[in-house]
Every structure is written in C-alpha cells, then in structure tokens.
C-alpha cells in the first residue's frame, strides 16, 4: 500500500492500522491506551493524526490505513490537540509527581515533557478520591488514574477475571471493582498485570521496602532473603541494561551488601517442589487419584480457582509454592541446623509477582500463627532497594548462594517461564516412573510464549498427556474444555501471567514483548549450559531428604511442604 506521511511517500502493509503503518516506518506517535495484540479501544485520542486532504483528525490506533492516504503526524493542529489532551489529563491529576511511585517512570509525565507543558492551563476542582489500600498486593489510587482502560482490558480480556471496570458517568467516571467496593472484597486475584500495564501511579504494588529496611536494622533479627528464578534474568532491565542478562552472581553480592544475612535461591525449592509434585503426580496416576493434577505455584491462579473454579480445587497439587516451601524450610530445617530461634528470623522473598504478597499472608501459610514469609518484594522494589543502598551493580564481583540451599538444578530455574514447571516435573516423573532420566531433557513442545501448549509423551508405555497454560483467560479455556470432557490430561501447568513468571505483575514494566522473549531465552541458555538438569539429582535436595524429610510425600513433608485450599464466595 502506498501512503504519504508528512509529505514523504512510504509503503505500508495491507490491512494495517495507521498506527501500525507509522510504527513500521519508524514514526512515533504517542498513545496511552493502545495494547498490542488486542483490538484498539480508541479511548485516549492522543494518537490522532491529521488527514492532509481535509484537516480532519483521525485516531491512528483504530483507523485502518488506506491506499493513497496522506497524513501529517506532527502538524500544528495535531500537536495542539495532543497537547490540549495532555493538559486536560493534568488538570484533573494530583500533580504530586515528586511523591509518586512512578516519578520518572510515568507515561503521563513523559507526555507532559514531550509537549512542554509548563503551566497549569485549567484551574479545576479536582476529583477527590480515596486510596484503596485494602489489597495486600495492589495499591489503587483513583486520583492518578487517567482512565486509559488498559487495566480493565487486561483484567477482562487477558485474565478473564473482570475484577474492575468503569463505574459512574462523565467526569465522575472512575475505574473500580463492582459497586465501588475495595479490591480485597472483589474478585481480584492479585496477579498485578494491571499494575504492570498502568501508565501512571494509579496502580502500584503494596510497597514493603520500609518493612525490610526496618528488619535489616533490627540487631535481633536474622534477615534472610530468597530470590525467585525469574529475578536474575530480569533485574538488569531496571538498571537500564539489556533484557535477558543473567546477573545471578552480582545480584547475590548486592543482596549481601545490603545486609541480608543469608541469600537463598528459590530455584532450590523449585527443585523441592518438583520432588513433591512429581511424586504426587506419579502417586495420583498409580493409585487412581484425581486427575488432571494442576500445578499450584502461581498464587493468582489459586485464588482464581477458589473463586471461579472451586470444582477444580481437588485437582490442584497440594504442594506449596517454591516461595512457601523455602519459607518453611528456612524457619524449620535451616533454623534447627543453625540453632536459631525461628521467631528471630525475618524471611524476605523477592518475586516477579504481586500475588506472592497475598500468598505469604494467607492464613493457610501460617504455622502456629507465624508466617513463613515476612515480607515479599517485587523485582521493581528490589531495584529500588539496591538503589537506596547506593550499590553499583557494575562494580560487584559475583557471589554464590548460601548453604544449605546453595545448589539448584536448571530444571528449577526453568520455573520462571511458562512450561518450565512441566518440563522439570516431566524430567523427574520420568525418573520416578522408570528409574531412568529421559533421553533428552529438553521438551521443546513446552517451550515458547504460546498461551496454550500441549504435550503427549510416552513414558514406558504410559502416554502422559499434559497441557501448559499461561494467562488466566487461557486457563478458563482449558478448564472449560476439561469440564466438558473435550480434553483429557494427566497434568496441567497453569501460570497466571502470560508467558509465566518472567512476565509477572512485579516485573520491570516492559513495553514490548521482545524483552519477555529475551528473558525466556536467557532461561533456556542457563538450562543449556547447566550440568545439573534434574531436580532429583540436586545434591542439596538429596541431602535435605536424607537429613530431614526422608522421602517425598512423607509425614514431615506434608506438614511443611503441602497445604490445602477452599472455595471463595464472591458475594461475601
């Protein structure tokens, strides 16, 4: 298709929108509501361009490009209109950037800079809203909301949760849970995809940095930290480094510098999870237990199931998530071994996830009224913590994780990407069923960013059927198919966030999918180079069982490493 942009003739692919044509040609037009891969909503109007033929302003995100189209992207008219729109947004905005979580990292602020807005053009009465701090994971500040609607769309169209929507009319419109209730009483599953996509400070994670710093400064406390498998391949982005770099050693060194007494890798308990989960799967298959078994690592998925699919609760593996297993072994095995009073341990975890904050506070996760995990930080919060302590990652020498959980298999590391749990579990289940490792540890059918992946594997005559799902919208599809009897599996891996933990709600806000792919590739590279590819071969895991748990599924293991879930009534 031949089009003319700003007087220059260029080519555009057939069937694209104007915005897509401009992006192809490397011309940037700002947008606030556009979501790649979803139908355009046309809400923000910032992306308007001027039709050169008649001076009409057209929304480029939703309008298809046409043959012979002539447009101006940065004409005086278009720029003036865009600036007015930004000024209108600012007019009803708290104007408190200095105190905002998103200061220097805000799309509205960027636009204000782009359009050189240097004075308050309107002097309105601003909407007066309360901050919703009811959720353990997400903080909602409607005053900062520009109603781009991306959170609503991600919640409904990607996650199929629909916890929030537009309410009220006109200038009083806002985004809120049903009946303007607070998040904690809504169907919100705390996945944080809305937080990750919010252009302003209207949706942020509940910040736990202050709690962690207080604990670090408490001489009575032994502060330990665990970091999730996704962390080492994504943290670098928060410091302006290229996506997909594995900085595990440097990160460990930084955490020690901050003052954490012990630094553990959650990938270790990912291995532990595999031991328990593979054992549970083999057990369910052999004893005719409830199938399909569904993974339990993703806390947003757990709440989703409790709320929308309670009939599947018995299908969910009883294994705690790696975070909670690590929390449990720290305050039991580790405490015993080090001869520390568990109540003196302050256990921190760094997760790519906001729902982990919710998980850590679940009543089921308390033992004798004490939480196994005391504070959960997101990847973004960790970056702030590192900055707060004046640590320059570039000048640190890599360090190793602490014992007794120092070793991890690359199978445990794969947990960070969609399909990783399944791949790790299949490797170990194969061993448990046959006494042998599979010929090739890599299961390519489980790899990549696709939302739904299926596997059919012959393990000594047992045709193991499995599905790997990421995003709760896809989870709905698979569960509905299972419910209707249209699909049959032994094992389903469900990750709440599209692509798995590497694209979690607590991760660096990535504007493009390419960064997520780079993080995923980094995981595969780690597995490729690893000499330890099987959870059951992890020597620290073997030792943990020998010294403590005896065998997977033992009484002790059940006490510390397993849990239960229950139905949630939305209307309560």
């Amino acid at each position, binding site marked *: 298709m031949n089009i003319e942009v700003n007087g220059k003739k260029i080519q555009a692919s057939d069937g694209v929108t104007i915005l897509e044509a401009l992006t192809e040609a490397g011309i940037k037009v700002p947008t606030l509501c556009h979501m790649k891969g979803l139908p355009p909503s046309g809400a923000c109007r910032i992306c308007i361009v001027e039709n050169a033929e008649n001076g009409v302003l057209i929304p480029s995100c939703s309008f298809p490009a046409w043959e012979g189209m002539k447009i101006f992207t940065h004409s005086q008219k278009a720029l003036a*209109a865009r600036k007015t729109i930004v000024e*209108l947004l600012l007019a009803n905005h708290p104007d408190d950037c200095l105190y905002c979580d998103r200061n220097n990292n805000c799309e509205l602020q960027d636009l204000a800079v782009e359009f050189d807005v240097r004075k308050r053009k*309107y002097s309105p009465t601003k909407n007066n809203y309360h901050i919703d701090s009811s959720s353990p994971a997400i903080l909602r500040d409607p005053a900062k909301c520009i*109603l781009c609607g991306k959170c609503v769309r991600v919640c409904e169209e990607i996650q199929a949760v629909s916890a929030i929507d537009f309410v009220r*009319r006109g*200038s009083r419109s806002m985004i809120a849970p049903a009946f303007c209730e607070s998040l904690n009483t809504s169907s919100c599953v705390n996945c944080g995809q809305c937080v990750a996509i919010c252009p302003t400070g209207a949706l942020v994670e509940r910040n736990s940095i202050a709690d962690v710093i207080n604990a670090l400064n408490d001489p009575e406390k032994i502060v330990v930290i665990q970091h999730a498998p996704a962390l080492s391949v994504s943290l670098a982005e928060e410091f302006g480094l290229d996506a997909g770099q594995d900085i595990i050693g440097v990160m460990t060194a930084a955490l020690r510098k901050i003052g954490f007494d012990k630094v553990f890798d959650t990938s270790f308990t990912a291995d532990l999870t595999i031991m328990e989960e593979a054992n549970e799967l083999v057990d369910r298959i052999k004893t005719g237990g409830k199938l399909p078994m569904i993974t339990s690592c993703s806390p947003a998925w757990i709440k989703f199931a409790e709320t929308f699919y309670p009939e599947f609760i018995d299908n969910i593996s009883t294994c705690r998530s790696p975070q909670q297993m690590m929390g449990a072994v720290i305050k039991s095995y580790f405490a015993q071994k080090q001869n520390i009073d568990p109540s003196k341990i302050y256990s921190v975890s760094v997760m790519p996830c906001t729902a982990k904050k919710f998980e850590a506070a679940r009543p089921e996760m308390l033992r004798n009224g004490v939480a196994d995990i005391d504070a959960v930080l997101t990847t973004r919060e960790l970056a702030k913590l590192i900055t707060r302590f004046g640590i320059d990652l570039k000048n640190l020498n890599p360090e190793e994780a602490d014992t007794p959980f120092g070793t991890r298999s690359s199978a445990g590391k794969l947990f960070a990407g969609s399909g990783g749990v399944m791949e790790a579990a299949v490797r170990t289940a194969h061993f448990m069923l046959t006494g042998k490792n599979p010929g090739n540890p890599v299961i390519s059918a489980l790899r990549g960013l696709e939302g739904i992946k299926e596997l059919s594997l012959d393990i000594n005559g047992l045709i193991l059927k499995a599905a790997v799902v990421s995003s709760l919208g896809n989870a709905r599809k698979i569960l509905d198919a299972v419910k209707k009897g249209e699909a049959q599996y032994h094992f389903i891996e469900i990750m709440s966030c599209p692509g798995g933990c590497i694209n979690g709600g607590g991760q660096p806000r990535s504007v493009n999918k390419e960064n997520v792919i780079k993080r995923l590739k980094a995981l595969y590279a780690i597995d490729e180079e690893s000499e330890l590819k099987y959870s059951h071969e992890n020597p620290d895991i073997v030792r943990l069982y020998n010294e403590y748990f005896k065998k997977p599924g033992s009484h002790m293991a059940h006490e510390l490493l397993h849990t239960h879930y229950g139905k949630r009534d939305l209307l309560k």
Partner: protein
Amino acid sequence: MNNNIIENNCWKEAGSVSPELLKELSKKQFSVKPDDAEMIKRLTREKIDRPVIYIGAGTCGLGAGAKATRKQIEKYLADNNMNADILEVGCIGLCSAEPLVDIQIPGKTRVSFKNITAEKVASLLDNFFSGNIPEDKVLGQFHSQSSAPWDNVPFLSQHPFFAPQKRWVLINCGIVDPLNIEEYVSRGGYASLFTALTKNNPTEVCDIVEKSGLRGRGGGGFPTGKKWKFAASGKSEQKYLICNADEGDPGAFMDRAVIEGDPFRLLEGMTIAAYGIGASKGYIYIRAEYPLAIERLYHAMEKAKKYGLLGHNILGTDFNFDLTIKMGAGAFVCGEETALMNSIEGKRGMPRPRPPYPAVSGLFGKPTIINNVETLTNIPMIFFKGADYFSSFGTPTSKGTKVFALSGKVSRTGLVEIEMGTTLRDIVFKIGGGCPNGKKYKAAQIGGPSGGCIPDSQADIEIDYEKLKTVGAIMGSGGLVVMDENTCMVDVAKFFMDFIQRESCGKCIPCREGTKRLLEILENITKGRKGKSEEESLLRMQGIITMEQLARVIGSTSLCGLGQTASNPVLSTLRWFRNEYEEHIFDRHCSAGVCKELIEYSIDEHKCKGCTLCARKCPVSAIMGKAKTPHYIIPDKCIACGQCKSVCPFDAVFTK
C-alpha cells in the same frame, strides 16, 4: 390502490386496505375479511352505531390528567344512562391542549376539544349531547367521507397548528386506537409490508428506499437505503436490525409519541427493513422511562405475531423476523449506535471506534443496521406511495417530512411534522404561535445537546440537513426548544454543557475531561465579582481565553458523536450571541436577568410605599427601611434570590 389515505394530511379520513393482504391474513383467522366493506367502515369509524369518545392518553395526555378525565366521562355516562364507546388514543401532537377529548356521534364528524380536565367534562358533555358545541373548548372537527360536518365548527386541518403540517409519520397518532391491529390494517396498514414481501426482492427494497432519498432521522442524516445496502451486501449468516428508541435529548419526545400512538407502524417499518437487509433478528432499544410505549410495543408485537406479521414465515413467505425489546437504563450515550450495541450485548454503554462500522461489524460482531424510530416509521409510507412520490416532497437533498418536538417559550407546544424545506420561522410562528405574552423571539435550539442555536436573524432558514449545518446547527433527532428574550444564552450553553458532562461515558479524554472544564469556564463567566480574589478573576479570564480552542479540540478529537458535538452549544451561542458572552465577561451583567450572581436588585424609592413586605420576606435580612418610608437593599448582603421582587405589590423592585 386507493391513495387518498395520504392525501394532504390525515384529517381526510379513511384508508384503503389491500384485499390481497386481507386474503393472506384470513388464513390466520384475522377478523377482517376481504369482502367485508362494512366492517372496515366500522373499524375506521366511518360508521358508528353509538357515540365514541376518544381521550388523548399518551404520556402527555396522562400528565395533563387524562385518567381523571376518563373517570369523569365514565361517571357522566353512567349517571345519565348513556351508552358510548370510550377509546384511549395517543397524542395528536398538540400537547399544550391536552387532555384532548374527541366526540363522535353517529352520522356526524368527529370533533376535538381541548384542555378537557376532569372538572370540564360534565359541562362539555352536557353541551355536546344537547347539540351545542362549546366554542371556547372546541379545537376543530375532522373530515369524513360519509358523515356530515358540523356547522360553524372549524376543521382541524385548518387549525393554525395543523394547517402547515404534513403528517406522514404521525398520520395515525392520536386518531387511531393504538391497540387495535384490525384498525391499523383497515387504514392501509401492513399493505406496504405485503407489497415489499410479495412484489420486491430485498435488493429492490433497498433500491426503493435509496431512491426515495430518505435520510437517517436520528441526527446524522446518512442515506438510509445506502446504509441498508452495506449490511445487505455483507456475507454473514446472522444480521441484525436495531431500532434506536433511546430518545435522550432534553426536550425531545417524538419517538415516545409515535410508539404510543401508532406502534404497528414501527413494527411494519422494521419488518420491511429487516427483509431488505436480510436480518432475521431485531431489537428495539428503548428507554425504560417510557413504560407506556414499551407496553404498547409488547402488545403490538403479540398481535403482529398472532397474525403472521412478525416471527416465522411472515405473510406466508419464508421470511422470518424476531423482535426483542431491550430496555435502556437511561444513559444518554446509549443513543450513540456503538454504545447502544455494547449495552445490548450486556456491556457498559461505551462507544467503540468506527470503523468498523456497524453495517460491517456491529452487534455481536455481525452486520447490523441501526435506524431510529422516525426513520423506520417513514418506511411504510415509501412503499405505500412509491419512492418517487416520497422524493417529490422536501428539498433537493432532504426529502419527505421531519417531526419536531416543539417546546420552550412558544404558545403551542407539541409534536409537529413538516415538509422538509419549511422555514424555522413558520414552525415557530405559524405552527407554534410565537412566544407567549408578547415576548420577543431570541433563538431556537435545534438538535438537542448536539445541536445549535438559531437566532432571529437566521430564522428564515429552511429545514434541510445541509442548510442547518451552515448556521452551526444540526437536524438532530428533532428537539426544538424555543427561547425568548428572557433566556440567557450563556445560561443555555451552561445547561447543555452540564448535561453533557454528566452524560459523557467517561471513555475518551477530551469528552470526559474537556466538557467538565468547559462547564467550569461557563460557570465562572456567570459568577459575580463578590467575594472573589484577584487571582480568581485572573483564572476566570484565563479560562475564557482557552474556551473556544478547547471547544474545538473536544469536537475534533472525541471518540463518538456525543463528544464530537458536545461543544456545539458553546460554539453556536458564541457564534450568534457573542455580545451576550462579552456582556457577562466584561460588564458582569446578564441582560436577560437569568444569571443570579450578576443581577443587582434595587428598590425604586418613588414606587416603594414602605409596606415592609419585602424586608420581612428577605431570607438574609438584606433590606432596610422604616415602615411607610422607601426601603433599601444592601448589595453586599443580597443573595439575589428574587423574593423581594416577586412579593412587591407595587412593582418597586427592579434589577440592573
């Protein structure tokens, strides 16, 4: 086919029924048989055996007390041992004359009486049945082919309200029994559907409508036939037809009156439209605030289904059309077609970007045609009289008639239908009778919140889609509010902006945020100086400077029609009444005396007798003075409530 049903206007009674249609309908035990001319005469009330009393019982009639009138009539008949049929009809259009009561006795024409509230019933009936037609109550008599006219009673068709009108859409309104499908058929109803289904294929139906020149009466004015063709040519197993009856403009009530008065006409129009575009499923999206109209529709649908005029195998053909009524929850934006579709789908009523247009991908992603009530009720006429006849009326670009809801500062308010090309002045002065109490006409707001004001200097403009645009107004759906010299145009702009900023769906930024800011600027303009800091005055001026530019950005960048036209009331009043704005801004004066903060009340010392009434009524004790001596208002204390002016028996209080 006998054409005289349409001739000139509806006051010439009787219609022609299609014998072929009756033959088809008789298969479904329809009570009117093809050869039963007698029955048709009875149904059209050309022949009656006992008196018939018609009561205007549309929403406007009911509001004026039609129910009480009916009770009184029943009581009168019972007390006097008289037999008469009582019939509730819709609104004939002249709402200001409601409750309307028509009386017809055997052999004589039907006579219409105005403002017959309950207490007037006895004297009216006493007089009428003793042969006197009370002159002060009579509105006029109907024409009839078979009955004798009354002497010295004017014909309704010559009444100044009705004479300039051309009633096509409203042909049956207020005249027929809206519950009676037999009467509708006897007056020529469903003959058009029969013609379309049996003599035309769908393509021809679209061609005929396109040829007629009919354009969308909902406001946009898109050629209806052309729109139908978009959907007709789409390849989809499922297509939808939606009737937009979500009439939300302040001062607009055309759809309500048409549905209440002649529901079968809408169903007939919709069925023809559905056949043309190939839709097997239709929706009527109507506001829940129209309970009577909804009731009438349900009733009409049931009857139409019973006689095979709706549902499966309509009129014995293989064409199926099912209708569902969907009630709107009162959001103005749901009159916008994409928001309306979202609402039907069970989503929040928020517009979607276009393209894709509904005709390509509409309701549930299927090709969908959305027409408003007036557009669809025009369809039977086109097939009854032919496209050429239809297009022979109107202007070169705007064919046929247009219905307006005439309201505001005008002597005769109500529903009027005029031929396109009639001047606004004729509507306001000839039909409406001009402004009451000798006040001077200032402007007419046409097209509701999306429209504009037309000042006296432009009142000779012809009603025509294109011409209205040249003066900054739009045809709109038909709201026409007349304003006199006591109306402040800044206040008018403020009223509409307040309406719009409340009714914006909140989706797109310019409409959601911009209309609120515009309202604030207008509010500041109408604020007094009292108690304001210099900074506030400065901000007021700053707002005024940005007002026009902001209004234009809202118009050029908003997502849907609501936002794109949201600033029209401001731009249009600015265009024609800039002096009034300037007077408010620079002199802080409102010469219409509407903007309270800008009014200063004073007492004329020559007129004041010192009766102290005003001082006693003043809620803030701002009036001083001894009894029997002239009083004085303390400006700083006065809140300009106007109490003193309204109570002064000597007209001594004045404003400046």
